[in-house]
């Protein structure tokens, strides 16, 4: 009996740290709508700062708790700095763009932390006076875990009081409900937002600092906590603090008891829970349906129109350049260009469902990596010829996308995105764990192109034909009735439904199309690399694709192509340098501030006049 009590309490104490982080994240999202990727970095800074403060002072009760509080305050201020100098300038940009800005912050903090705190892992200090354990019917339980178990509800109550008993709290709740109305009533939202970001970051720092006696500080903890924090926020309902608490307890307990019965379940348990919750309750356990539906008031998107004559010429010239490239470029340049093209196709497929389809996916790598695996498995086990594998891989991914999409299209906004993430993670863990069939994380090797295509120039042309062909086909689809219907569904579900369009079915279908083309990109990718590993399906890969699309701009068709080329090129050029993530992060921040419509979007608008054909200008259209 003692064993189960201790196991239960252990789950609760795990839940406590997660709750601090998730509560902050949920708070920030609820009010500012920022999907704050940098929250994990704040957590990491909290741990490091607390460690050094505690180490600098004589070891005592005061220095320990003072250090934790100081760390939380410092992190709160870091949050304020990020908000005031970066995010505040971007509130008018599409919400997703903020995600990219926060991701840039993640990159910057990763390298700054390495520079400031050193490369070594640090073991956290114990809490003075709380070093021991308590015996529960024969099983030992660390005292500090009990402190955490008590602290979490106290923080929950404190937040509740703050929200329900202070004027500030009332204003924050009002901002959560209806930002425009609050602004109309003359409340200065700027500082309201800043204070919320402060509180949210404070909580992240607190989480990082307070877990020190349970572990320590290392440079990977930012990425390790962020996924769990997002899952908890989404399971609890975005913006709901009690929901985050409930979800943290559920996830903590499932983790605690899950390892008893299924020790191998550690990779996927959390994501399974999220998938189940989202399928049953689309807005999380205690969340409310979003009042404003998907469309932002101010959309940057200009009306999509077929390419003008000039644009076609430009396209043609570019195409010619690509075809002539092998005459001038070395083999490595061909490979780099080939990779850009494949990546552009993957990004285009994400853009297809994200831009015109209005469905953001955080798990697109499931289809990209899935396509790579489908092709690799077919080649490896049944020696499918390359051509056939390249044909079947997208079909398999289309099928997978139909299955996943069936669940996802019932949701919208961030919830949809998180459900795609959950499914992607489930697919990833299947590939990762099923060592006998997929090779686990040792991957599948030796998947090189067929003999007729093994010449690098021929393979380059093959890549170009498939990638550019795929991109043009996707582009073409946007101007078919399907494309127009998709945009109608995105812009107004209600009206689209009223004129007799089956909204869900169209979204489902576009989801599947996106899966097919991502699978195609993955299929050709595996032949260019010769091997495939589960990391092609993992969360970071999904974010690579997402970031590229955002970098180029969600609102222009050329965006994904420009963005992905820029992404690969930057990665290739910058990774020569020592602190390249810092530089990449700064470049992202620069791009985000200068081109809030994305690079492609910026040039699209800038040269709109130049690009549009003469008769259109004469007719007075934009």
């Amino acid at each position, binding site marked *: 009996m003692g064993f189960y009590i201790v196991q239960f309490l252990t789950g609760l104490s795990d839940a406590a740290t997660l709750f601090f982080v998730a509560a902050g994240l949920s708070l920030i999202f609820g009010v500012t709508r920022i999907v704050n990727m940098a929250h994990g970095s704040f957590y990491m800074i909290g741990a490091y700062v607390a460690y050094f403060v505690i180490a600098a002072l004589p070891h005592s009760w005061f220095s320990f708790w003072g250090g934790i509080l100081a760390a939380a305050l410092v992190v709160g201020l870091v949050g304020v700095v990020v908000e005031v100098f970066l995010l505040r300038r971007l509130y008018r940009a599409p919400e997703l763009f903020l995600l990219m800005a926060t991701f840039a912050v993640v990159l910057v903090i990763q390298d700054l932390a390495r520079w400031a705190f050193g490369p070594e892992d640090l073991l956290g200090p114990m809490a003075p006076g709380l070093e021991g354990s308590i015996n529960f019917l024969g099983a030992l339980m660390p005292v500090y875990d009990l402190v955490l178990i008590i602290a979490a509800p106290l923080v929950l109550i404190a937040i509740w009081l703050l929200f329900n008993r202070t004027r500030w709290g009332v204003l924050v709740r009002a901002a959560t409900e209806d930002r425009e109305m609050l602004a109309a009533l003359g409340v200065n939202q700027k500082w309201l937002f800043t204070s919320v970001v402060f509180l949210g970051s404070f909580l992240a720092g607190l989480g990082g600092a307070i877990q020190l006696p349970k572990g320590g500080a290392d440079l990977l903890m930012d990425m390790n906590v962020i996924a769990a924090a997002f899952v908890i926020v989404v399971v609890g309902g975005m913006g709901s603090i009690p929901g985050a608490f409930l979800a943290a307890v559920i996830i903590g307990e499932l983790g605690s008891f899950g*390892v008893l019965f299924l020790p191998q379940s550690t990779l996927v348990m959390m994501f399974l829970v999220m998938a189940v919750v989202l399928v049953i309750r689309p807005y999380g356990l205690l969340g409310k349906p979003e009042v404003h539906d998907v469309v932002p008031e101010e959309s940057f998107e200009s009306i999509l129109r077929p390419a003008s004559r000039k644009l076609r010429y430009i396209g043609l010239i570019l195409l010619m350049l690509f075809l002539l490239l092998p005459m001038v470029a070395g083999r490595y340049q061909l490979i780099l260009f080939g990779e850009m093209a494949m990546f552009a196709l993957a990004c285009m497929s994400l853009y297809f469902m994200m831009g015109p389809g209005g469905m953001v996916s955080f798990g697109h790598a499931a289809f990209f990596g899935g396509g790579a695996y489908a092709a690799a498995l077919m080649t490896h086990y049944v020696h499918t010829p390359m051509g056939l594998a390249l044909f079947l891989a997208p079909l398999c991914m289309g099928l997978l996308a139909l299955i996943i999409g069936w669940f996802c299209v019932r949701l919208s906004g961030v919830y949809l995105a998180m459900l795609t993430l959950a499914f992607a993670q489930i697919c990833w863990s299947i590939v990762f764990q099923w060592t006998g069939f997929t090779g686990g994380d040792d991957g599948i090797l030796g998947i090189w192109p067929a003999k007729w295509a093994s010449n690098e120039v021929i393979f380059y042309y093959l890549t170009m034909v498939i990638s550019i062909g795929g991109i043009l086909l996707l582009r073409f689809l946007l101007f078919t009735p399907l494309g127009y219907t998709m945009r109608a569904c995105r812009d107004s579900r209600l009206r689209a439904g009223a004129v007799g369009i089956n909204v869900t079915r169209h979204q489902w279908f576009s989801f599947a199309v996106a899966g097919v083309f991502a699978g195609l990109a993955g299929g050709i990718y595996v032949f260019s690399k010769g091997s495939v590993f589960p990391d092609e399906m993992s969360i970071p890969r999904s974010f690579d694709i997402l970031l590229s699309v955002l970098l180029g701009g969600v609102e222009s068709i050329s965006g994904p192509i420009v963005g992905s080329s820029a992404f690969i090129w930057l990665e290739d050029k910058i990774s020569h340098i020592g602190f390249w993530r810092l530089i990449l992060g700064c470049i992202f921040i620069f791009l985000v501030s200068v081109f809030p419509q994305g690079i492609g979007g910026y040039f699209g608008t800038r040269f709109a006049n130049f690009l549009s054909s003469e008769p259109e200008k004469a007719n007075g259209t934009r």
Partner: protein
Amino acid sequence: MKTRKIIFVAVAVVFLALLINAPAVFAGGTIKLGEINTYSKLTSFTFPYRNGWELALDEVNKSGGVNGKQLEVISRDDAGKPGNAVRIAEEMIRKDNVALLMGSFFSNVGLALTDFAKRNKVFYLAAEPLADAVVWAKGNRYTFRLRPSTYMQAAMLAEQAAKNPAKRWATIAPNYAYGKDAVKAFEEVLKAKRPDVEFIAEQWPALFKINAGAEIQALTRANPEAVYNVTFGGDLAKFVREGKLRGFFKGKYIVSLLTGEPEYMDPLKGEAPEGWLVTGYPWYAIHTKAHTMFLKAYQAKYNDYPRTGSVVGYNMLMAVANMLKKAGSTDTEKMVDAMEGMTFEGAFGPVTFRKIDHQSTMGAYVGYTAVKNGKGVMVNWKYLDGKDYLPSDAEVMKLRP
């Protein structure tokens, strides 16, 4: 508007020019070596590792280089992604004209490069990747591996562990290939020596996301007499701390892979576990001539003590330099022929690259942990030569394609 256009065109031209910059001209007086590792992650290993090969590079170049040529290392970060590593390898081969490839940490990156080396007939020395497949299941003519593999290190531990009377074993290992291989190899070797042992519980925490409290409870419930641990880094710290608080280690015989390495033991400071059987690197107590020279040079250059990574980096570059001397050429086939069966003097003493599977015989130190002056150390250790912990030649032949 006009100036904007000009700027735009200029930017585009620069962009294209950078993309299609012509392959670098082959430098006459130097031999270029391509080195790829995960410098943006796992810094506690990769930074000392870089120090290690930079030290060796200095030594080689100061003593006149190789065959009258200086060595030059082009070092790149793969961010832990096999796809990136393959692309960087392409770039190094095609553009930088490196003579060979070396390095990498993660097994999957190592395997991707192994396959790349095979297809492109490029010499590749895998420094750290521990996966057995690098030299066995996926081994090929062009790939060599320096570090004692998962199998070898697990076998070293299992041999010592077999002397302990414990029969009921539990295992805890990170949930990925390295962890799984390490447990499998240990179980295999231990069971072969001691058919009476049984493995009664296992835990597979996600890498760097250990749920230490809960997993230790789960292991406690099975009531094992001995525990085999494969977790490292942050996971190890949590495992040790929770285990102590929960009285888990009391009266149990603990065997732990890599825990004696300074990278993983030093962060634990005074809380380092005591009496565990571990593999590691007791740099403070090795007094062989080769190691003393290495240690002095390292401390003089960096004002810091070496970690295991430093030795791996140092030995890697030394192996390559010796091979180049022997081959007298940067022709891949000649380099491979020179490397096969070659013996060189590393920081741990002589190391041979076996002809049969291209695995080096670099060994590891096995001993027990203790705490001295508030620091974890290894005591009663001995150096086990890698050549004694490899399967028989017949078995190796079966494993290699």
